[in-house]
């Protein structure tokens, strides 16, 4: 039976038992437990089983309880191949010293979470008790408190009634003796909680409270360090300082502490070495040094400037800034915003570029159209000069006639009246021609407006008619009555009409005069478009050239540049219309274009 049990124990992976003097639910214990469970296997490198026991010997500080627990632990872990025992706090160390030999004989002990000051009270620890204490005497915490509160005149040192409480009291008294503080020190030791609270309630900021909390008050009421600390802080009119890590965050301003994690990590390392077979006596390390650690909320509460804290202080519980809390979200958001801003900027730049490009294109179109108009008008200059010279000649004749009539001395006033009114009419005729010419030659940017297409055709038709008669071409116009208003640039549309008409007349130049006919007609094709057609009676356009005649430098004329129709296409396309050529029904060609109707034209 025994052999079998031993065999079972030997086959189990090495076990480590952690003994906590208090109970499981304390946050500090939860942290310690999870740290050890993580770090011990890390340090050992092989499978290891971690066991935790919570002695609760602080609250139940009796020999009877301890014995019961010791027996229980012995029974429970007898065959668990326990290779190391970890004990917490002075109270845990005490328990190990008393019961280790019965509970787990010859199992080395690693003590942790214990102050150097407390460790001194344990004289002559056995050789297989190893560990490292934290060097955080109460002196340092007290002097920091005094530095931060230079006006403080009294220090209240609060301790409880349990053995650990009394141990702390002893340590504190020794520290005060060493420190000889400028303030008066009063010890509130082992008082009932109610009384402690009553005393603390009366305090002002001219005092400092120094306490690690207590396990048991003068009435024998048990509590955790955190509970008692919270109670004190909730009523105290003076700031509370402590050197232990456990109560930081429960209302303590701060102190010179050793972070619990550091101590536990070191203990885990020791356990790992012991499991590896190291001799306990070889494990000797200097004590851990503490750091100044404060609670930001309490600093704020007591109006303590962080700049006055000792160099290298750690301030915990800083209200996390949005940056700390949502750093990645902020970074990502900022990045997205930046990208978005860049994108918007790019779009704006692009828009501006496009705008100026459009503007440039409109200007170019305007210039090109103007040039082409000048060329077209140059082509019909003979017709134009005739248009002008007719009225001018008539004016000259009338003036000459009037002169002679006056010289003749006969009564001629009636005739003179007629002559003068004719002169005026002819003068008007001439200026109309010039006005039309100027309108056509005006260099303007492409601008879409409402245009009466028929009126525009009639206007340019005068030039066309003049040119047509000069070229012995019969011109007919067939304008659809009530043609709706179209959207376009009047001058440029007229230019296209002129180009198409000249093109048609050119196409017929080689044939007998009596067969030369050109017709300009307007139609409403549908609800959206009006159409203008120029029909000539020339030889027509070869099928293969129909599609190409609107391309630049494609011409059927020996002296043509082939630009007129290409510019016409550019203009019509800028209007959102179409331009194309067809073969006429009988003979000749039809050149047509469409332009969109104005919005008011829609029924």
């Amino acid at each position, binding site marked *: 039976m025994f052999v079998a049990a031993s065999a079972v124990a030997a086959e189990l992976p090495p076990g480590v038992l952690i003994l906590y003097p208090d109970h499981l639910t304390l946050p500090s214990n939860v942290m310690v437990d999870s740290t050890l469970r993580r770090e011990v296997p890390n340090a050992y490198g092989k499978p290891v089983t971690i066991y935790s026991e919570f002695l609760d010997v602080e609250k139940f500080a009796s020999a009877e309880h301890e014995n019961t627990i010791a027996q229980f632990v012995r029974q429970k872990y007898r065959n668990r191949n326990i290779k190391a025992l970890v004990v917490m706090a002075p109270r845990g160390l005490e328990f190990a010293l008393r019961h280790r030999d019965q509970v787990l004989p010859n199992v080395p002990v690693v003590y942790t979470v214990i102050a150097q000051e407390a460790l001194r009270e344990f004289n002559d620890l056995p050789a297989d008790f190893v560990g490292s204490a934290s060097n955080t005497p109460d002196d340092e915490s007290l002097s920091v408190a005094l530095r931060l509160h230079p006006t403080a005149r009294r220090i209240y040192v609060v301790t409880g009634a349990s053995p650990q409480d009394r141990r702390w009291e002893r340590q504190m008294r020794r520290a005060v003796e060493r420190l000889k503080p400028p303030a008066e020190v009063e010890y509130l030791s082992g008082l009932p909680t109610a009384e402690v609270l009553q005393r603390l309630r009366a305090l002002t900021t001219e005092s400092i409270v120094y306490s690690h909390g207590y396990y048991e008050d003068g009435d024998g009421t048990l509590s955790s360090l955190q509970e008692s600390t919270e109670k004190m802080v909730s009523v105290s009119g003076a700031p509370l300082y402590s050197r232990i890590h456990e109560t930081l965050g429960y209302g303590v301003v701060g102190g010179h502490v050793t972070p619990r994690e550091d101590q536990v990590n070191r203990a885990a390392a020791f356990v790992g070495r012991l499991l590896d077979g190291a001799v306990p006596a070889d494990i000797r390390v200097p004590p851990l040094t503490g750091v100044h650690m404060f609670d930001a909320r309490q600093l704020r509460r007591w109006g303590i400037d962080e700049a006055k804290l000792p160099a290298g202080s750690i301030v915990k519980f800083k209200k996390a800034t949005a940056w700390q809390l949502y750093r990645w979200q902020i970074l990502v958001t900022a990045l997205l915003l930046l990208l978005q801003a860049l994108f918007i900027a790019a779009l704006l730049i692009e828009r501006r570029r496009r705008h100026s490009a459009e503007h440039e294109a409109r200007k170019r179109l305007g210039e090109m159209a103007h040039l082409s108009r000048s060329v077209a008008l140059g082509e019909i*200059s*003979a017709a134009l*000069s*005739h*248009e*002008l*010279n*007719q*009225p*001018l*000649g*008539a*004016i*000259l*004749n*009338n*003036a*000459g*006639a009037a*002169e*002679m*009539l006056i010289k*003749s001395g006969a009564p001629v006033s009636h*005739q003179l009246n007629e*002559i003068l009114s*004719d002169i005026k*009419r*002819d003068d008007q*005729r001439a200026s109309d021609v010039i006005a039309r010419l100027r309108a056509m030659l005006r260099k303007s940017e492409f601008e879409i407006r409402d245009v009466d297409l028929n009126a525009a055709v009639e206007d340019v038709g005068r030039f066309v008619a003049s040119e*047509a*008669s*000069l070229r*012995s071409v*019969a011109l007919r116009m067939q304008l659809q009555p009530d043609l709706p208003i179209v959207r376009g640039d009047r001058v440029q549309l007229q230019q296209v009409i002129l180009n198409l008409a000249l093109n048609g007349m050119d196409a017929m130049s080689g044939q007998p*005069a009596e067969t030369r006919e050109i017709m300009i007609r307007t139609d409403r094709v549908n609800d959206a478009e009006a159409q203008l057609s120029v029909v000539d009676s020339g030889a027509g356009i070869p099928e293969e050239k129909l599609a190409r005649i609107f391309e630049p430098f494609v011409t059927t004329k020996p002296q043509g540049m082939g630009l007129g129709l290409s510019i016409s296409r550019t203009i019509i396309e800028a209007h959102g219309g179409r331009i194309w050529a067809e073969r006429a029904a009988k003979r000749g060609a039809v050149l047509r274009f469409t332009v969109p109707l104005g919005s008011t034209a829609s029924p």
Partner: protein
Amino acid sequence: MTVSQPSIRVVDDDASWRLSITRLLNASGYKVMAYESAEEFLQTGDCSTPGCILLDVRMPSSSGLQLQRSLAAQSNMLPIVFLTGHGDIPMSVTAMRAGADDFLTKPVSSETLLQAVQRALARDSERRAQNDENLRLRARLDGLTPTEHKVFVLIVRGKLNKQIAYELGCSERTIKWHRHNIMEKLRVDSLAAMVSYAERLGVLDDESRQESASP
């Protein structure tokens, strides 16, 4: 022939121009007949009376040059003054070659226009006078008998009486008698005058044309 006051035919499609030129010419004492188109002039115009034509070269449907050709075909004698809204060199050359009397560019000053009209009218009356003379000469020539006409043609071609007699198969004396009658009828007194008479009426051309056509 009847001698009447010259009238100026204005052919121009521009009503305003027609009216103004009519006024100017009227004020200068001329009779004016205005036509809207070449067709109208060809149909209703009368080219027999003295005057001249003021013609716009560039008119719809039928250009001035075409009218000029049509008139020439009708052996019109009226001088034509061309008017054009634009001085187009090829067009003016064509017009002048075809017998234009003047070529003016609109707008034209009254002086220039009236001078051109005067020149045209002077040419017209001169041409008419010449024409009348020719008609008179032609009438006298027509008064010759067929034999006398044959003898006349041979005389102006420089044939001697003897040669003519031989050619016509009669005596030299008969020829002399014909010659005397011819000079009497044509009212000429020398051989030189007879030759110039024949040249003026184009008798020799006619005869040679007949000769070349006959065989």
